[in-house]
Each structure stands twice: as C-alpha cells, then as structure tokens.
C-alpha cells in the first residue's frame, strides 16, 4: 500500500480522521510526524524536500523559504476542490505564496494567537504586557517563539510588520522587545512548548494567564468555563496553517486526496473538534462543535475580528534577527 507521510501540527491529524481516511482509501496508509513551523522547514531543508508527502507550515513561512531552499513543490490547483474554501483566505494565502506564477500553498485551518486567563483569578488581562504584571509572578507563561515578539512589539506601540521593509528599524524594535521580555522573564513560570503542555499548566492551576493559540483556549473553555481566550487590545495575531507539498514528496495523489478529504464538512467538524480552530472553508463557524462555537463567541466581538493582525510574510533575514533575539531572551538570567 502507498504511504502518506504527513508533517504537521499536533492535533491536526487525529486518529479518528486517519481511520476514516484509510477506510475510504484502503490502499493508503497515513503516517504522521508532529512538528512546528521552524522544524518543518528545518526538516525539509535537511532532507532537501524529501521524506514527507504533505506539510502544513503557516502561510508566512513559505515564500522566503521556497526562494532560498526550494523545498516545496508547486500545487496543482486543479486537483484541489478550492470551491469549498473561504475565498478571502484562499486568495490571501495564494497571494502570499505565489512564486513565478506558481502557487505553493492553500489554506487549511486558521486562528489567532492571543491571551488566555482564568478569569476567576485574573479578571482583567488585556494586553500582551499584562503577562509581566508582578501580581501574577510565577503564574504566567508564554511560548518563546516569534509570536510573543510581535505581540509585545504591538503592545509597545510599534508596528513590526511595517518595519519588515526597514530591517534596521526592525532591529531596534526587537531590541526593545527583548529588553522588555528579559525583564519579564522572572515573572513567568515557564515557557510552554505545545498545546497540551499549556493545557496541563492551565488546568492544574500552575499557570493562570498565558499567551496562547485561540484553539487551545477554546478547548480549555469546555473543561473549565473560567478559562477564556482574550484578544489583546492591540489585536490578536492571525495565522493560517496551510497545505504544501514537499519538493520530493512521493505520494502527491494521496496528498491531494487528504486535502480534499479533510475539507469535507463532516471531517472539518471532527478536525475542529480536535484542533479547536476554524477551518478555512465557507461557513466554518457553523461547523465548529457547540462548545467551541460558544467559546469563540465569548472571546471575539466583531470589533476584535476587525482588529486582527495577519502575520506578514517573513522576508529573508528576519528569521535570523528574531532567532537571535529569542536566544538572547532565553540566555538572559536574572
């Protein structure tokens, strides 16, 4: 039988869906490797785009990487049922990932990064920088990745995306951010690394407020209605995780089959239940499970939606600058 090797986020390929997929296509076996944006790219770079048949980096991680390393394959859009996709998202992703007229990605799930709090203990969390409020000392958390850099920059009144075109300026922003986050370090319990990691911290009460993916917060809301997703006042950061095919993928047909399969409404429902976030299909909100829909409604007002900041494509060089900044924060001891 053919194998479909997925390189994706934790929870983007629940066993249940794999089972259904394999029932439908008995000659395809699905193997999953969990990863995150940075590792997906590093892995594919190391393999020269081999070893996996379908990857799911976020929309901002494709353009520059593809130009430098050529690790993705152009998509054959005729094999994807793009009609079910939310056109705004599809066009957005396409616009971000077209090189020499070839499209390299289509959207899958989208969501936001923002804040989360146990409102019974932290009633008034509003801004990214509230995580550094000394009254929650030892009880807050964040993921030490670029999201928090950007968020903090916004909270400090900067517009980092605008600074992408002027890297010197961007560097000064990063320096300020780093200073702030280093000072904040002592306030944190730990840096979280994955959705369930964060869930454990929140559910056990070891952490009461954190930077989060909205999906994680929605899932927790179902278990503890005191845990709310809170879009920061400067706007939640929006991301779209995509479908891409690695340059040396060996099972393109199966990959297309998977893409089309998971975009079917009943599968979207299952998927959203697992990930907690919305699919980029039309009417996605209706396909959310009951409790999640409630969570979304509780979290977002329309104003919040308008305030969303989509991650901008990362131009060459930025990744390095951010990486160094993150290292600096990690290394700082106070």
């Amino acid at each position, binding site marked *: 039988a053919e194998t479909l*090797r997925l*390189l994706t*986020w*934790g*929870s983007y390929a629940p*066993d*249940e869906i*794999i089972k259904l997929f394999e029932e439908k296509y008995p000659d395809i076996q699905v*193997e*999953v*490797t*969990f*990863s*995150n944006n940075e590792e997906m790219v590093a*892995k594919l770079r*190391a*393999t*020269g785009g*081999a*070893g*996996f048949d379908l990857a799911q980096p976020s929309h901002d991680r494709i353009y520059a990487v593809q130009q430098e390393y050529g690790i993705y394959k152009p998509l054959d859009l005729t094999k994807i049922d793009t009609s079910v996709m939310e056109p705004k998202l599809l066009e957005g992703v396409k616009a971000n990932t077209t090189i020499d007229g070839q499209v390299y990605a289509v959207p899958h799930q989208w969501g936001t990064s923002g804040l989360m709090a146990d409102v019974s203990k932290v009633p008034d969390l509003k801004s990214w920088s509230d995580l550094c409020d000394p009254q929650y000392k030892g009880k807050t958390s964040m993921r030490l990745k670029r999201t928090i850099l950007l968020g903090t920059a916004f909270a400090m009144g900067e517009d980092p995306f605008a600074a992408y075109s002027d890297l010197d300026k961007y560097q000064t922003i990063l320096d300020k951010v780093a200073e702030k986050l280093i000072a904040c370090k002592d306030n944190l319990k730990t840096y979280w*690394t*994955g*959705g*369930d*990691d*964060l*869930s*454990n911290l929140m*559910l*056990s009460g070891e952490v009461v407020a954190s930077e989060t993916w909205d999906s994680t917060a929605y899932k927790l809301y179902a278990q503890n209605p005191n845990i709310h997703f809170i879009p920061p006042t400067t706007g939640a950061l929006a991301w779209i995780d995509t479908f891409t095919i690695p340059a*040396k993928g060996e099972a393109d047909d199966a990959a297309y089959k998977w893409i089309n399969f998971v975009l079917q409404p009943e599968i979207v429902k299952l998927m959203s239940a697992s990930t907690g976030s919305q699919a980029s299909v039309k009417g996605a909100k209706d396909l959310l499970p009951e409790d999640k829909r409630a969570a979304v409604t509780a979290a977002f007002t329309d104003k919040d939606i308008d305030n969303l900041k989509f991650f901008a494509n990362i131009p060459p060089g930025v990744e390095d600058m951010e990486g160094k900044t993150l290292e600096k924060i990690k290394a700082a001891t106070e």
Partner: protein
Amino acid sequence: MNVAAPQSALLRTVYVLYVVCFFAYLAAPLVAAGMFAFNDSTVPSLPWRGFTLGWFFGDTDPVIGMFHDRRLLRGLTNSLYIGVIVSALSVAAGTCNAFLFERRQFPFKNALYILMIIPLVIPGVILGISILVFASMVANNADRAFGLDLSALRPGTFLVVLGQFSFLTTITSLVIQARLKKFDVSLEEAALNLGASRLKVLATVTMPYLMPALFSAFVVAFLVSFENFNTTLMLVGSDAPLTITMYDRMVKVGSTPVLNAVSFFLMVGSGLLALLSVVVQRDRPSD
C-alpha cells in the same frame, strides 16, 4: 573482617543508609513515571484519581492507551527495527575490531586504537550533526554533479542507523575485546593441534567462548540504540523511533499519562532484557 568497611557500627550504619538513599534516588523518577501510568486522570500529576489500565489498553477518547495509539506503536516498531539492525551491525564490526586489536600487530596500532575509542567521547549531538552535514554534502554534490538522487543520505532510517552505529561500535568493540582478552589463545592452538581447521577452531572454540560477550554487546547496543536521542534527533526522517515520537508528543502536544504507560512498558522490557543478559553471562561455567 573486611578492612575496607568502616569498623565502627555507627559509621557502618550511616554508610549503608547512604547506599540505600542512593538507590532510592535512582529509583525515584522511574517509580514516579511508572506510577502515573495507572492514574485515572488525563494529566500525569497528583491528585491520585484511582487505578486504571486505560493508559495501556483504553481505546476511547480521551483515554487512548498505548496499545491503541498508532503513532506510539509505529515508533516502537521503528525503534525495534532500528535497534536490531544497528546492534547486529555494530556487534559484527565490534567483533572484527576486537580481533584486529587483540590479535594483530600493525603499524600505528596505538594511534588507531585511540581513534577507536574516540567516538565514545564525542558528544552525540556532534556525531549527529556531523553525519547529517557530511551525508548532505555528498548527496548534494551527487545531485549537482550527476543528477543522482541519493535519498538514503537524507535524514531517515538509514542515517539514523549510521549515526547510532558510529558510537555503538566503540561500545561493542570494548565489550567483546574485554572478553577476547581473557581468552587463552592456547585453546585455539590446542584445537589446531588436535587437527581442527582454522574455521573449525573459530566455530567450535573461539566463537562459543565469545558468545556471552556477543550477546551482551548486542543487548547493550540494543538498549542504547533504543533510548538514544541526541544523535537520532538530528538524523531522523519520517520514520521516527519511539524516543523521538515521545519527545515530539511531549513538547509539541503535551505530556499525557500514555507517555507514563510507555515509560513503564519500556522499563519492564529493558529490565527483562538486562536481566536476561546477566543470566546468560552467568550460566557459563567457562569463566
């Protein structure tokens, strides 16, 4: 009387207490990790919510036991597969090395012997990245120069095997060499003298003598391969062995008691294997 032991009763008691504490320290994290495999909770932490085998055999969300978790099972199979291959290879190479350094004279023997030991003291990370980098260089150049796609040299099972082999061979060589050193060459000469051919001597005298060492070298190599992380992480492709799978699960998804269940399972498995190797070593009247 044992002159090495403290002579005063008080000191002796303190000493024994220290030893007991030490072993408690050794056991503590394993006991803790094993214990929560049976806690009927979705997080591996207190409070204790009752006993369950669900994290082994459960098959309904959210309690999917390890025996129903296909990714963990696949990781396990990959680990077994990689472990067996790499152990067999490193035992074979280790046997050659043992004979080479124990029985043969050749120029620069001492320097080469140091080279043989060196992989043991190179950090695993460095072995991992250096093999990754070198293999990629070869593959890239082959691609560029001949359009050859040497996919075996890209991260994947083959590189994982090479990476683990690179330091396991030192271990197996040392284990086998230690036994060969104790071997009395006159046994081989006696067999020759009694009319056996060289091959027959090898088959009837030398190899049976080395067998326990080969076996324990295999077991050691297997256990080390099974638990290796540092080297493997750099070289792994899509067929991740269990440790990597568990790590991915832990840092990218989060720790659930199913990881405790796997840990418990591994402890029991490796424990039995280690015990078996000791029994095999001991049953021999030969030494």
